[in-house]
């Protein structure tokens, strides 16, 4: 961990959310790689790598928890910071995500400032 993180992988099946994340992250100077679900996320991670991963929980094909588990199972990414997107009304999701290996969380709807704060606390 030396220079500021450059590449952030965002995994979310909602295009609206992906666009919001990309906008906020690009403004903050990060390079953004997008994926639409857990399977796609694993492929993009392989192809492009990532310094930080931001993932939603509810996704088809491979959901957030399964995705986190697989990422942690990959030796290269055992310590890659992973932030999950949760909503106010699901505090238990945070706990489940952490058990699966998530590093931190971001509550939706997020404002760009809070998003960057969360990233700064893990990378």
């Amino acid at each position: 961990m030396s220079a500021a993180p450059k590449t952030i992988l965002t995994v979310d099946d909602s295009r609206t959310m992906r666009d919001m994340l990309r906008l906020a992250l690009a403004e903050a100077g990060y390079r953004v790689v997008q994926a639409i679900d857990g399977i796609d996320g694993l492929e993009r991670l392989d192809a492009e790598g990532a310094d930080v991963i931001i993932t939603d929980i509810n996704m088809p094909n491979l959901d957030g928890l399964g995705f986190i588990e697989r990422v942690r199972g990959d030796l290269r990414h055992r310590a890659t910071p992973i932030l999950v997107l949760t909503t106010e009304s699901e505090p238990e999701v945070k706990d489940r995500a952490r058990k699966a290996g998530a590093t931190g969380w971001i509550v939706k709807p997020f404002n760009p400032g809070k998003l960057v704060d969360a990233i700064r606390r893990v990378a």
Partner: protein
Amino acid sequence: MAEHRPVGVLSPESLAAIRVVFFQECEEHIADIESGLTALECGDCDPELVNAVFRAVHSIKGGAGIFELEALVQFAHRFESALAEVRADRVEATPDVVRVFLRAADTLADLVQAARDGQAVSLDRTGAISEELERLAASQAAAFETFDDLDFEPRPIAFTPLPPAAGPQTWRVRFRPHASLYAKGNEPLVLIRELGRLGEAVVELDAEQVPMLDAFDAEDSYLSWTITLTTTADEAAILEVFEFVEGDCELVVSREAAAAPPLPAPAPAPSARDAAPEPVEPRSVGPAAAPKDLTAIRVDLPRVERLVDLVGELVVHQAILAERISAETSRRSDTVAQALDDLSQLTRDIQEGVMAIRAQPVKAVFQRMARLVREAEAASGKRVRLVVEGEATEVDRTVIERLTEPLTHMVRNAVAHGLESPERRSALGKPVEGLVRISAAQRGGRIVIEVADDGQGLDRERVRALAVARGLVAEDATLVDEDIDNLIFAPGFSTADSISDLSGRGVGLDVVRRGVQALGGRISVSSLRGAGSTFTLSLPLTLAVLDGMLVSVGGHGLIAPLASLIETVQPRPADIRRLGASTSLLSIRGSHVPLIDLGRALGYAGARETAAPHGVALLVEDDAGEQAALLVDEVLGQRQVVIKSLEANYRPVEGVAAATILGDGRVALILDITAVIAAERRRADHANVAA
């Protein structure tokens, strides 16, 4: 938080763009919710269905939160909570429950629309269904799931409540991560760095616990830190830095003044195996179907429209090329002719390919009908079972948009007038639920849509009597069943005794028919008394391109749609008869049809001698089957033309459906045969009255 963070609020333009995306996505989500719930209603028990519906509602809620669409967020939340109960198997997805969800889906769609248009939705629309959702969601006592197996260690805080002091304070932060902190990807150095941004920090490492190499476990945690921080930030800000690692470390934050309690003696380092994250059951691994996005791409509509335009131009210019070459070369070269034919075929293939990009399945329109049926059921008290076939049938975008209106009328009609009440059906020995079947298929280059019901069918006696009463047919006219059936499309015709909520509003089937005809389509009905009626709607596959016959009138090109053309004839003077002051008739195969001088009718030329020896006529048919012969100067051949709107820059013109650009670059008008014949009839009527 430190003020020097560069990231601010997102620009309104970017947010506006994402808002558009959000509402587009909402449409897709609503469609997914509908189809998922419909499948559940039909008895499909796949748990993935509930998941998919849950995710869609969840996504809508998430996006709505971004744009602060409160009413939508709240309703979506209730819907989601109720769905969560079903997903967790605490509530069973009985048909009644699914029906509640279907109504919730309709309400959600309304709320999305209202949010998009910036309007409010009244509480009586949402109140009842909201309550039902809450009742479903509250069926289990526990509001949240609990986790008894969480490895939760209380974090000791030495906190003596001191009054908040102005000016910088000095804090001591003692921080010892557990192995689990590292396992989750957290990094103490990052946290210490963030802490340091709050003010001035002096960091002390305690490496006492690091064992000798032979006892060293790389996965374990041996280091701890003491950070002395001078800052104007409050304790909450300091704790916030460690928000993510609560439970995975020991953290003691104290003001420098108070005696700092020592960190509790380190527990024996847990083995690496225990610290590894426990495997969690992945929530949903669906069947290995291709992720739906990856087999399709999203393209901006204007780009597709532009492509369609360009390809249309390509077709025209290819035709120009062919014409010019044949005009310039004195003898026909086989190789050139072949090359031109190949080019022509290639161009047509490209055009078909491009039109296929715009083609969409009628499914979206049919889904709207499903909702319509539910509303009609509720309004009429009748029970309806809707069967849909051929949803995947594709049609050009331009046609899809115009399907909704005629379909809506036909479906409403079927429920309001076709189907009997449940009691009546029961008495007749029919199933209590009336059947409405909507089907779509491509047939003969057109799309044919049927709306059939198994209700009472048309009462032909009554229809005929009403038609006679309204002067639409003569008392003694002989009519076959089919003629009588199609009388219901006549203007002003309605067999409803009262204007019901459903088919009222003063819109009769004649308006529907005119609308369909304006699209170049046809609508008809067939019926069997006691068994039901079937409405048949036939439309061209695309409104963008037309097959027509190019003719020349008064030096100008005109296109007559092939769909209306029966044949071309060369009238001999002997075949032309006059009737009254201003009407000419053409005798053809024993019957007489009006002969219309197109040049005069359109104002292109002065009245010509209808007994002229030259001249060709097009025998055409309007949508009611009325025939006429249109006199033109020359028939130039069939053309497939790209339809250009006249109304985009001008306004509707009677007798003209649209326009097109010919090979020579000039504009040619496309005739609206029905209007031309009708206008001529009116003119003749006036002239005869005046005479």
